[in-house]
């Protein structure tokens, strides 16, 4: 139990440390003393510059990053629990790709700029459709079969990837839409303002509340669908609610920050090693760890080649692939922990 407290403390501490760190670093470095002085209203820098950078650029960006990371990780927890499979993350099973296709079509048709809700709604719909397809495919065969799931996800990702590429080629000569869609697809947190946060927080809140409610049922699902049914868990409605919740969480993240993959795979994995498989606990700490991962990766993305920014999605994909290699070579240790 003691080791649990230490792990919990580390996760929470890292989470809270990531905010001031991310506020501090960037292409304009503020010394922490600047911040402190500013707080006690003894400005050592041009106050308006500082205020603009901190409150209109960095703070919303950090908050958006935190919610995006948290909701992607939470969606990962749900999809892994729903499929009873530690590889079933939203990007592996095609949920993210489904959201991307829908969003790409929004860019293409220009409907995306029509109303601020159209992009998130489209992304949500895309996520629902793709996750439902994969669930249908997976339940016609054996639910537990890793191969079925991965193959179905592979097929879906290929299909959606092709459609997205097709949309990209159609937009190739459009100098406004093409770069916008391209950057969006790489996944990034650049130029995120307060209004992005306003799209994000209600869906994330709703998604997390739903996820919290169904979490104990996902634990029961570990006993198999038949046993879960005899224990008064309505398996079919649980599946439907899970898919909707995953779609809400991924749809929100994707519509704001683009296709950031790997968070939903890596974070629940690591968190499960830390805190065990119970879904409520897993959900809570995965949210924290996901936030921390995205915020800190974004700090790296902003500072490594400063003043040139790297898309945070690219950086996280690199980290994700390193993690996969680690998993490949440490599987025996991994399953023993």
């Amino acid at each position, binding site marked *: 139990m003691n080791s649990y407290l230490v792990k919990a403390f580390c996760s929470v501490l890292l989470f809270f440390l990531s905010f001031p760190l991310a506020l501090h670093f960037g292409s304009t470095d503020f010394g922490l003393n600047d911040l402190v002085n500013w707080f006690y209203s003894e400005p050592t820098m041009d106050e308006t510059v500082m205020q603009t950078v901190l409150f209109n650029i960095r703070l919303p960006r950090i908050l958006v990053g935190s919610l995006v990371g948290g909701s992607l990780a939470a969606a990962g927890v749900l999809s892994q629990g729903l499929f*009873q*499979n*530690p590889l079933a993350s939203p990007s592996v099973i095609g949920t993210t790709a489904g959201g991307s296709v829908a969003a790409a079509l929004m860019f293409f048709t220009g409907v995306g700029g029509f109303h601020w809700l159209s992009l998130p709604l489209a992304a949500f719909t895309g996520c629902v459709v793709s996750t439902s397809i994969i669930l249908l495919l997976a339940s016609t065969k054996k639910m*537990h079969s890793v191969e079925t799931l991965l193959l179905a996800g592979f097929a879906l990702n290929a299909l959606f990837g092709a459609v997205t590429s097709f949309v990209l080629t159609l937009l190739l000569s459009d100098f406004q839409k093409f770069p916008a869609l391209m950057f969006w697809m790489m996944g990034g947190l650049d130029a995120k303002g307060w209004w992005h946060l306003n799209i994000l927080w209600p869906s994330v809140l709703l998604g997390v509340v739903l996820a919290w409610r169904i*979490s*104990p*049922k996902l*634990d*029961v699902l*570990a*006993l*198999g669908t*038949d*046993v879960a*049914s*005899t*224990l*008064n*868990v309505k398996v079919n409605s649980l599946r439907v609610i899970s898919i909707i919740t995953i779609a809400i969480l991924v749809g929100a993240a994707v519509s704001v920050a683009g296709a950031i993959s790997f968070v939903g795979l890596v974070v629940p994995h690591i968190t*499960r090693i830390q805190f*065990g*498989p*119970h879904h*409520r606990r897993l959900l809570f700490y995965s949210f924290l760890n996901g936030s921390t991962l995205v915020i800190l990766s974004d700090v790296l993305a902003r500072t490594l080649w400063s003043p040139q920014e790297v898309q945070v999605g690219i950086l996280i994909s690199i980290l994700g692939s390193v993690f996969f290699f680690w998993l490949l070579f440490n599987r025996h240790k991994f*399953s023993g*922990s």
Partner: protein
Amino acid sequence: MGIKIHSVNHRLSKGFSLTGINLDIDDGEMSVIVGPNGAGKSTLLKVAAGLIKPDTGFVEVSGRDIREVSSESMSKLISYLPPSSSVMFDYTCEDIVTLGRYPYHKGLVSALDRKVVNDSMETMKIRHLAGEIIDHVSTGELKKVMIARCLALQPKVMILDEPCASLDLSASVSLMNLLKLLCGNGMSIVLSIHDVHLASKYGDKCFAMKNGREYMAGDASSVLTKNNIASLFDINEYELT
């Protein structure tokens, strides 16, 4: 009391059907279901557990027609063990047993729940496995954990689909002894089994089935004779030793 199955007919999509099944098990009785592969044992057990709603006929548990019992109370009356259980994530044995009591705690485990879980593990003699990861215990231990999971529900009836499958003789005997003890405490147990020796040694009643129909039913000792077994499984009597 116990569990009764009243003239159940049920057709599965594959063309297989259960026909005219009647079964009556009293409190504290163990009923063993035997028959060749594909006889319909698993389907029958699923009907008994309420997982399959039969086309006609009904199941009665403790004198109540399960069609008229809410799904919540139903979930506390019967526990069901599927033929194989693989758990994907690293839950401990104690976690698994606790999950078996889900209809009571719904995720918020009380002191009473912990006590019942503890007692169930004690009964199955697996208290020492509490902190072990479920995936790391032996097949025999896994079955005991899963039956402790059934017990944690404090059910009236336990329905076990091949609890002895893939267990060696000593693990099977140790499991059947524990099940027999449970019957001594008033639990009704229905289980399917392939080992006819174990079936005749431990079963109070035996239900032999073939092609979805009752082949023969009655006291285990009178049903499981050499002749009956030979004709039930279509084997020559002289091949039985």
